[in-house]
């Protein structure tokens, strides 16, 4: 993984010193709440419903075991002994004290971590495919480029006060596990006809109130032009993105209003006109970044038959919670943060410490955070799998439900977030309880449920096979269902199936959706495929048949 050099370390220490001074001035009344706000946001600090919320950056989701242990120690010392992993591969602390935040940031800096630009109208944490580097189908590992973009975006002199937040995702695989088509910029690694590496550049995707799928504005961008081209896009956006209405300020609105062709033309003109000033990306810099993500020193092993003589529970876990590895004898292993009844993405300090130790023992000391709010041990020997399973089971982290209906993605919702209209965590729990029978869950197969507590869509409900959006109605929490969304390869936005439902009816409605699928599917047809084949109507009818009163 990437190791800080003297520049990186000096930079984050100077950043901590700056934020310590800003916090001091704010607490002393020298810096008003309004003036302090953009500064604290750019250091990951929100003021939330109950307490501040600190969002710690986990660049492209990669953590060293000792960093995960350090996070555990921070949650014990400054918070309530747990944290929440997000869809953008970050970690949120829900109960820090404002006055402690500079100390927390200093502790993070001591293990090469930070909370820089995890919120605010600037370039956010760059995210990547969680199977980067181990996935057999990959064109190239996206993480070196993510790290280059991270550094380039960090306190960018020109792009730190954008019209709105700005999210970039990079993927190197045909299957898009980074939701890159619903990011402000999505970068897909590819090779041209000569075998040279570059990117297909997508712009203007996004969720929130007006969900949109990104447009390809360049089929192939050579690696060396990456930073200059990003600067051209951001320069057009910084000048012309709307600043008069927060709901129309994302780049997707600019791309839509200009039209993708005009937007592309403006970017290309800007890019060509300033080639002398564009930030260069030299081959030695690419090489330096790539050298940090070389393949692990894998042992020469053969693939094993891991099922021989093993219990059914292990086999279910193996099937659902592990994935193919490009190196024979290895497997990628999910650490499920979706135990039924637990808030999706939450992890206790003790679990973090144990997983850190486990990663040291069996996975080269590295852990990944996935877009789906689980962790991943990417490089586990197949011969270690049974022991890893036993250990994860003991920790409550072996729920064999990855990719199934109860592997729910959810934002923190009304329980924590001051923007939310409705709770998400309690609802996730009700759904998990309703689908607690594993045989039934497995029979349903691959179904994604994504829950957002408000229109901002942090739970990515628009791209869930089943999307659930919390809305407030007459002071009560109601939920609107969408069907048919997907962020994976064939990206599509879900369609609202009808009037919203009160909380206690949502799990039942999902059960009726599942039953409709079971009745209509052809053999081995996945939920999303049945839905695409037959359309929404049968599902809509079944959900609302019993609820003429819902309005």
């Amino acid at each position, binding site marked *: 993984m990437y190791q800080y050099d003297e*520049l990186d370390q000096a*930079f984050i220490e*100077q950043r901590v010193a700056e934020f310590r001074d800003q916090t001091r001035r704010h607490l002393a009344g020298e810096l008003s709440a309004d003036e302090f706000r953009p500064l604290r946001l750019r250091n990951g600090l929100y003021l939330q419903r109950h307490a501040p919320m600190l969002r710690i950056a986990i660049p492209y989701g990669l953590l060293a075991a000792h960093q995960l242990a350090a996070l555990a120690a921070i949650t014990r010392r400054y918070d309530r002994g747990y944290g929440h992993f997000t869809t953008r591969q970050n970690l949120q602390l829900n109960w820090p004290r404002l006055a402690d935040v500079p100390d927390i940031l200093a502790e993070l800096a001591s293990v090469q971590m930070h909370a820089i630009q995890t919120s605010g*109208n600037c370039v956010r944490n760059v995210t990547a495919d969680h199977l980067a580097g181990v996935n057999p189908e990959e064109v190239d590992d996206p993480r070196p480029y993510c790290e280059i973009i991270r550094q380039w975006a*960090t306190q960018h*002199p*020109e792009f*730190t*006060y954008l019209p709105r937040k700005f999210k970039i995702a990079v993927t190197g695989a045909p299957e898009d596990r980074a939701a890159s088509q619903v990011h402000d910029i999505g970068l897909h690694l590819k090779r041209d006809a000569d075998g040279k590496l570059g990117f297909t550049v997508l712009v203007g995707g996004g969720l929130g109130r007006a969900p949109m799928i990104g447009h390809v504005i360049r089929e192939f961008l050579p690696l060396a032009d990456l930073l200059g081209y990003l600067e051209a896009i951001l320069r057009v956006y*910084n000048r012309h993105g709307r600043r008069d209405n927060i709901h129309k300020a994302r780049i997707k609105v600019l791309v839509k209003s200009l039209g993708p062709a005009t937007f592309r033309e403006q970017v290309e003109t800007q890019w060509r006109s300033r080639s002398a000033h564009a930030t260069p990306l030299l081959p030695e810099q690419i090489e330096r970044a790539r050298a940090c993500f070389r393949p692990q020193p894998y042992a020469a092993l053969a693939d094993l038959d891991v099922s021989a003589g093993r219990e059914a529970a292990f086999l279910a876990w193996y099937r659902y919670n592990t994935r193919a590895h490009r190196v024979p004898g290895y497997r990628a292993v999910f650490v499920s943060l979706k135990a039924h009844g637990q808030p999706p993405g939450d992890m206790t300090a003790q679990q973090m410490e144990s997983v850190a130790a486990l990663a040291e023992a069996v996975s080269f000391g590295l852990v990944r955070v996935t877009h789906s709010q689980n962790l991943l041990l990417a490089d586990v020997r197949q011969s270690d799998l049974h022991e890893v399973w036993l250990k994860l089971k003991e920790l409550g982290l072996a729920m064999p439900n990855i990719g199934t209906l109860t592997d729910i993605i959810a934002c923190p919702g009304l329980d924590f977030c001051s923007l939310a209209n409705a709770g998400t965590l309690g609802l996730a729990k009700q759904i998990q309880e309703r689908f607690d029978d594993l045989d039934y869950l497995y029979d349903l197969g691959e179904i994604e449920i994504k829950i957002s507590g408000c229109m901002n869509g942090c739970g990515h409900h628009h791209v869930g096979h089943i999307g659930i959006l919390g809305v407030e109605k007459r002071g009560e929490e109601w939920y609107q269902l969408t069907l048919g969304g997907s962020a994976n390869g064939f990206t599509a936005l879900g369609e609202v199936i009808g009037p919203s439902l009160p909380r206690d009816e949502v799990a039942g409605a999902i059960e009726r959706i599942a039953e409709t699928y079971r009745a209509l599917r052809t053999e081995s047809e996945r939920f999303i495929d049945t839905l695409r084949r037959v359309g929404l109507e049968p599902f809509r009818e079944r959900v609302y048949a019993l609820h003429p009163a819902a309005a």
Partner: protein
Amino acid sequence: MRYILRRREIVADDWYHLGEDIPAGCPLIIPLAQLRMDPERWRQWPAALGVRLAPADAPEDLTDELPGLALVAVEFPGSGDGRGYTLGRLLREDPRFHGELRAVGAGVRQDQVFLMSRCGFDSLELAPGEDLEAARRALQRYDVVYQPGSPAAGAAAPIRAQRF
């Protein structure tokens, strides 16, 4: 008398803005719209002339005037409007402009001046009530950066390491 930060020094400002109490024949900063309205009048201004750009103005429109301008002021109206950073860099990247680049407005505060100096602003007219000495110190908060900026001579504190 107004004091500003120019190339990291606190100095008395020798420029006036249109609308202020203006002595005869003083260096004067006028909005771009004024220049467009009556170019003849301003061409005859007896002292140095500067132009002030609002966030939505286009520096590209200054093509003819740029070589002769001793100063361009760019407005930072506050509340996070960051268009001025791009306008500043566009001006510094234009080989025809060699004048003073000044940040003005309610958004010119000690916590933003470092980035402004990196975008090529060599003079900073701070928002009312801002502490000039604190702003001067703030120009030295960082001595390492990742990206190249558009520095003007003497505008920013020395940088000892830069990545790209």
